[in-house]
């Protein structure tokens, strides 16, 4: 992932090593490396250590992914297993192209 300015700023809220949280981490890596060409700035927030940030982002369950791109903010709930749908939601400009 590109540590410098990226097209996608992704914040993944997890609950330590709970099963869905682990799955979400793996799915997010797949999404970033295989579909977003690594053009991602990913931050992982463990709600067990800081749940207030989740509330600040309007997130009430984990795992949850808050993605900011093209002046758009999208929230994806769950373990991110629906990779294609998430990718489709994150890359609408590709569809236009």
């Amino acid at each position, binding site marked *: 992932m590109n540590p410098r300015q990226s097209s996608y700023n992704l914040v993944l809220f997890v609950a330590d090593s709970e099963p*869905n949280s682990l799955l979400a981490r793996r799915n997010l890596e797949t999404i970033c490396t295989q579909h977003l060409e690594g053009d991602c700035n990913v931050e992982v927030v463990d709600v067990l250590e800081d749940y207030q940030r989740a509330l600040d982002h309007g997130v009430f369950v*984990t795992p949850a992914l808050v993605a900011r791109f093209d002046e758009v903010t999208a929230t994806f709930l769950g373990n991110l297993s629906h990779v294609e749908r998430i990718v489709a939601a994150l890359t609408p400009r590709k569809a236009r192209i």
Partner: protein
Amino acid sequence: MSTDETDEDKLRDRLERAEAFVAAIRGKEVDVVIGDDHLSYVRLREVEEELRRSQARYRAIVEDQSELICRWNPKGGITFANGAFCRFLRLEPAEALGSSVFELMPEADRPSLRRAISGTPELPASQRESRFRGDGEAPVSIGWTDRAIFDDAGNLVELQSVGHNVTAERQAEAEISRHNQELERRVADRTRRLRELHGEVMRAEQRERERIAGLLHDELQQTLAQARGLLEEIAGMRVSRDVEAVVAKAEALVRESIDTSRSLARELHPPILTMGTLAEAMEWLGDQMERHDLAVQVEVSSDLAVGDRDSKVFLFQTARELLFNAAKHSKAPWARLRICADNGDLQLTVEDRGVGFDAEQALESGSGYGLLTIRERAMLAGGSLNVASTPGVGTTVSVVFPIPPAV
């Protein structure tokens, strides 16, 4: 964009978020739910699994119970019934659910069921017992505990009834009751027979006394009187002084024998007992005690009458025994004999101011005072004996028994 469209967009957005939230939870993709100001760490899968296991354990426990268990709503509709309940009432499980507990229970239980519905959080449980009559089968008794169940606000939400078969216990209780009644009947019968026997013994004793008194009077005294007559005849003859002296001595002995015989006859069967009133008989008895250095103050109402002869004899013999005790043992110069009627009972009391004695020991050992015999006879007559004695102060002995009907 118009205000209306903006509001519509906002509403659509909220609905989509809510749907996504619910879908994520339903899809079991969620590990944690975050509250407004705290973290609710909910392991949903494990909670669901634990809940399933808990329900399975509960169901197994309830189903394996031999007790009859059902739950019903406040209108009487059954919401749960275990296997034992269904089998007892011969219902399929599906039939039991939704049936009315008021219809399934005996009609006599309905007031108790309504009382159960009136239970409070402070007093939620009540008991009842049902009697079920099967077709051609012996009745079955079930003991129930009905418990009202309340929510956090104190509202009645459900009732639980747990019953167990108490038929064997009731049968055992009935059997014990029958045995007790039979035992009491036999005891009463035995007591009656003992009293009759006691009466027979007393009458036999009295008859024997009368017979002996009769023999003394009719035979011995007559014989002695004849002997005295012959001696008087000899005394009227010309005889030597030596013969006169011997005859005189013989006359004296015969007179003494006649007196002794008369005295013995009177003691065995005082004529006053047959011919006089109770008061006269007691006065006579008191006078006789003077020969034993005991002055007796007799307090018997002249109009006090005892209906049957046996009771009169019993009173006389008891008073004589007690007065003899006072004369022999109390070292007192006087005693008081009192007979009175009180609350349907006759009470005979002999009181002295003598040396006293250990009454308890005397009654237990039965030694030397005849009190044991008097107590047994009093009890057989339906009465009791009371002895109060203080060494150095005196003794009071009371016999109480029901007044027999006057003739």
